[in-house]
């Protein structure tokens, strides 16, 4: 049986890749995918720790996170499309109305 800490390290690396992607890329869609990836790596830690402690609550939590991620994707992509209609761009450097 594989040690739990291996899963935690793998999830940490995937999370870091996602976070770095959010910092590096300028395409809003790709930033979106990186956020999904970070959510997924956290799911992996929750499931690994659920196995570690023999507690199903971690898996229930992952179920809830999946629902929230689905809602987030629906609303986020709708915002993206509305922005594309107005500005013809998905470059986040140009989406700066809230910046002073």
């Amino acid at each position, binding site marked *: *049986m*594989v*040690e739990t*800490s*291996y899963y*935690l*390290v*793998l999830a*940490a*690396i*995937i999370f*870091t*890749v*996602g976070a*770095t*992607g959010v*910092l*590096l*890329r*300028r*395409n809003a*869609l*790709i930033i979106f*995918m*990186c956020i*999904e*990836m970070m959510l*997924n790596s956290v*799911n992996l830690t929750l*499931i*690994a720790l*659920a*196995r*570690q402690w*023999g*507690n*199903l609550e971690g*898996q*229930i939590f992952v*179920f*809830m996170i*999946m*629902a*929230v*991620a*689905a*809602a*987030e994707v*629906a*609303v986020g*992509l*709708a915002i993206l*499309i*509305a922005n*594309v209609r107005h500005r*013809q*761009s*998905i*470059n986040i*450097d140009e989406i700066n109305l809230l910046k002073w």
Partner: protein
Amino acid sequence: MSWSLIFFLLVGAVSLAAALGVVTSRQPVHSALFLLTNFATLAVLYITLDAQFLAAAQVIVYAGGIVILILFVIMLIGGDTNDFSAAQRAWSRTVGIALGIILLLVISYSALSRMMGPSEESAALLRGGTPEAVGIELFTKYILPFELVALLLLVALIGALVLGRQQEGAGEGIPSVKANE
């Protein structure tokens, strides 16, 4: 080295490579397909972690729903929008990678307190994470959060409809994003 460890390393390597592919691809479509690979390999890892129901849900919700939605949006707004990598700010790449390395070090340090695999009795408590086990928990102890999640999904559905609605009198549809500035 046991077979399960070799299997974990193989699947983990594929997952990590797919994650890197998401970040480094030029085209959003390639990123989306790498993301699909990443989700699928994570579903495989869920099975090795006694979470059968969540592995199925991962494939259905993420691979079947979210990636398809992202691909639809790429189709709508045009896939040729390549990277606007910040040419005007050369420092952003260095800063991003440095912050990533710091984050990785911190997380790995906290995760490296060696946790062995579960004991026999705690593995038995998990009951393999079958739909039956998860469902009994979900519909007895966590029934209120479950209903709230249903409400959340309804609100998200209405919100997406309102946001994505065509404006009155604007009949020209979505123009494709013009090429890189």
